[in-house]
C-alpha cells in the first residue's frame, strides 16, 4: 500500500486541544457494542444460545482466529498489511504434522519459531528491498501455499500422536477452553510488552507518520521487522491450535481464515492507515466475527451469505476507521 502521505502534519488545532467528542467515544466502543448486540440478538433468536456449553464452544472455535488477528494487528498498526498469515498458518500445520514424530513435545515451539523466522524474512524483504508490504505478503502467500503443497504432496497428513496437543484441548477451571485461554494470554503478553517498553510509541509513531518517526530517531525498520516476526509466530501458534482440533496438518487448512482475520482487525476499529488501534480491539473483533460465523446458521441464513457479509463488513469497517487526514489520494 503506497499511499502518499502529507509531508507536514495537517493543521487541525481543534483535534489537538479538545478531548474526544461523544461521537468519537461512541465509535471507539463500537466493537464492544457490536459484540453485546450480537449476543443479545442471537439469544433472542435462540434462547439456548446463552448457555455455558454453547458459549464455551464458540470461544473455543475463535482461538486460532484471535491469535492470527492479534499478530497481524501489529503489522497493521505500523501502517502495513500482512496477507500471508493464513497461508503461513496452513504451512505451519504441515510443518507440525511432519516434525511431530521426530521432535515430540518440542514440535509446537519449533513450529512457532520457524513461522516467526519466516515472518522475519518477509519483514526484511519489505524493509530492505522497499517493496510495499501487501505485495511482499501476497508473494509470501503464493510461495507458502506452494511450499506446503509440495512438502505435503498436496494432501492432509494425519497426526497420530495426540498427546503432544492434548494440553490445548483441556479446560481451565473446567470452563474456559485452554486454546482460548492461551490466545488471551498471548494477547495480554503482547499488550504488556507494548505497554511496558517504548515499543508502543515506536509502533504508533511509525503508523501515524513514518517519515516523522524516522527523523525523530525511531528504529522504524527494526520495529517493522519485529511486527512481521510476531505476526509470523502468531500464525505458527494458530497452526498448533488448528492441529490440536483437527488431528491433521493440511496445505489448505487455514486458507479460509484470511478474510475473517482481516475482518476481525478492521471490525475491532484498528485503522488500516496505521497508528490508531490496539491489539485488544482485534480480540473483540475476532469474537464478533466468530459470533457472526456461528450465529448465521442459528438465525437461518445460508452459509453462502457469510462470504458476502465478510466482504461488506471489511469495506464498511475500513471506511469507518480510515484516517482521512493522512491520505491525500486513495489508490
Amino acid at each position, binding site marked *: *500500500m*503506497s*499511499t502518499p*502521505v502529507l509531508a507536514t502534519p495537517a493543521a487541525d488545532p481543534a483535534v489537538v486541544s479538545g478531548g474526544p467528542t461523544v461521537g468519537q467515544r461512541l465509535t471507539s466502543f463500537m466493537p464492544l457494542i457490536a459484540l453485546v448486540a450480537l449476543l443479545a440478538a442471537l439469544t433472542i433468536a435462540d434462547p439456548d444460545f446463552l448457555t455455558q456449553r454453547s458459549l464455551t464452544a464458540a470461544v473455543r472455535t475463535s482461538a486460532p482466529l484471535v491469535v492470527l488477528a492479534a499478530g497481524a494487528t501489529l503489522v497493521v498498526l505500523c*501502517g*502495513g*498489511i500482512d496477507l500471508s498469515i493464513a497461508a503461513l498458518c496452513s504451512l505451519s500445520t504441515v510443518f507440525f504434522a511432519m516434525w511431530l514424530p521426530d521432535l515430540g513435545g518440542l514440535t509446537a515451539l519449533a513450529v512457532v519459531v520457524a513461522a516467526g523466522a519466516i515472518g522475519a524474512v518477509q519483514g526484511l*524483504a*519489505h*524493509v530492505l*528491498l*522497499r*517493496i*510495499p*508490504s*501487501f*505485495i*511482499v505478503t*501476497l*508473494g*509470501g*502467500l*503464493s*510461495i507458502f*501455499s*506452494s*511450499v506446503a*503443497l*509440495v512438502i505435503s504432496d*498436496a494432501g492432509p497428513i494425519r497426526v497420530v500422536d495426540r498427546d503432544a496437543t492434548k494440553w490445548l484441548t483441556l479446560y481451565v477451571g473446567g470452563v474456559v477452553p485452554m486454546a482460548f485461554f492461551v490466545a488471551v494470554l498471548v494477547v495480554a503478553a503482547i499488550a504488556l510488552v507494548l505497554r511496558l517498553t517504548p515499543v508502543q510509541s515506536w509502533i504508533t509513531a511509525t503508523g501515524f507518520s*513514518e*517519515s516523522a518517526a*524516522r527523523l525523530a530517531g525511531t528504529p522504524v525498520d527494526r520495529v517493522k521487522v519485529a511486527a512481521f516476526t510476531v505476526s509470523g509466530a502468531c500464525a505458527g501458534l494458530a497452526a498448533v491450535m488448528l492441529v490440536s482440533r483437527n488431528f491433521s496438518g493440511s496445505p489448505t487448512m487455514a486458507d479460509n481464515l484470511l*478474510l475473517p482475520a*482481516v475482518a476481525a482487525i*478492521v471490525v475491532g476499529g484498528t485503522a*488500516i492507515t*496505521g497508528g490508531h488501534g490496539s491489539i485488544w480491539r482485534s480480540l473483540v473483533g475476532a469474537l464478533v466475527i466468530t459470533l457472526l460465523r456461528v450465529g448465521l446458521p442459528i438465525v437461518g441464513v*445460508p452459509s*453462502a*451469505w*457469510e*462470504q*458476502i*457479509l*465478510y*466482504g*461488506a463488513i*471489511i*469495506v*464498511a469497517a*475500513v*471506511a469507518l476507521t*480510515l484516517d*482521512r487526514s493522512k*491520505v*491525500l*489520494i*486513495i*489508490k
Partner: protein
Amino acid sequence: MTSPVEDVEVVAARRPQPRRGVSLRDAGPPIALVVIFLVFSALSSDFRTIGNVQNIMDTAAVLAVVTCGITFVLMMGSIDLSAPGIMGASAIAVALLVANNRNDNDLGLIGILVAVLLAAALGCLSGLALVLLKVPSFMTTLGVSAVGLGVATLMFAGVQPNISDAMLKGWAVERFLGFAYLTWIAVGCVLLGYLVQRYSRLGRYAFAIGGAEEVLALSGVKVAPYKVAVFTLAGAFYGLAGVMVTSQLSAGLVQAGKGYDFAAITAAVVGGTLLTGGRGGILHSAVGVLLITALTNGLVQVGVSPYWQGGVQGLIVVAAVAAAVVPQRRRNQVTK
C-alpha cells in the same frame, strides 16, 4: 543529464536522457521471453515442438484476458484482488444461463453477455467503494472478491451446473489456424485493450491518474468517474475470463478464478507495469503473460512439480517489484 561538452557538439542531444532507460525497460521482458524459450528448448525436446507452442498459447488465453483487466487498474496505481470472486460469480452465472443440467435456460450468447454484465457490475462496486467511501483499492477489491464468491456459492446451491451448450463448449475445443477459439478471443481482448488504452479518453486518463493524479485533478478533470469506469472495465474482462474457464471445464465452478489475481499481477509486473502506476500497458502485460506461461510450461517439462507454480510466481513478483523500485530508492522513503 547531458554534460556541457555534449551540448555544444550535438544540439539534438538535449532530449531528456531518461528515455534511454525507458527503452531498456521496454526491451527487457521480450528479451527475457526469448531467453526463456531458448533455455527450455535446449533443456527439453518436448518443449521445442509446434504442439507445445500451441499448448502454451492456449493455456495463456484465460490469464491474458484477466491481465488485460488488471493492467488498467495497475496503470492507475491501484491494485485489484477481486478476480477470483468476480470470475467465480460469472462462471456460475454463465453455466446457469446457457443450456445446462440444472434448469431449462438456453440463452446462448445473451447468457454470456449477462454474465459479463454481472461481472462488470461487481467491478463497478469496487470502483464505487473506492471513490465514494475512500477505502483503498486493495481492501475494496478484497471485499468484492468475497462478495463475488458468496454470490457464486449462492447460485451454485450445492449442485454443479454442467453445460451442454454446443457453442460455449466448442470455444475450448474447436481450432482456427491451429489455435483454440479461446486463444483468438484472448488475442481480440488484447487488441481491444490496446485500442482502449491508446486511443480512448479512458485509457489516456488511466495512465495520467497513475502518473500524477493531483495534476490531473487540478487541471479540471473529474477523476472519480474514470476510476469507476476502469474498475468496471476490469470487472468485464474478469467476467469474460470466467466464461472462458467455464467453457474449458464444461462446468461452472465457484473456484474458477482461484489464483488468477496473483498470476495476473505477476504477469503485468513482469511485463513492465509499475505498481505505482503510470507506466506499462496492455502489450507489456501480454508479453508478461507469455513469459509466465512459458516459464510454467517449461518448468513442468523439465520435471519440476506443478505445485511450485505459485512459489515461482511469488519469487518473480517480489524480485520484479524490487528491481523496479531500485531506481527510486531515495525518493521512496515511505513504504507501506
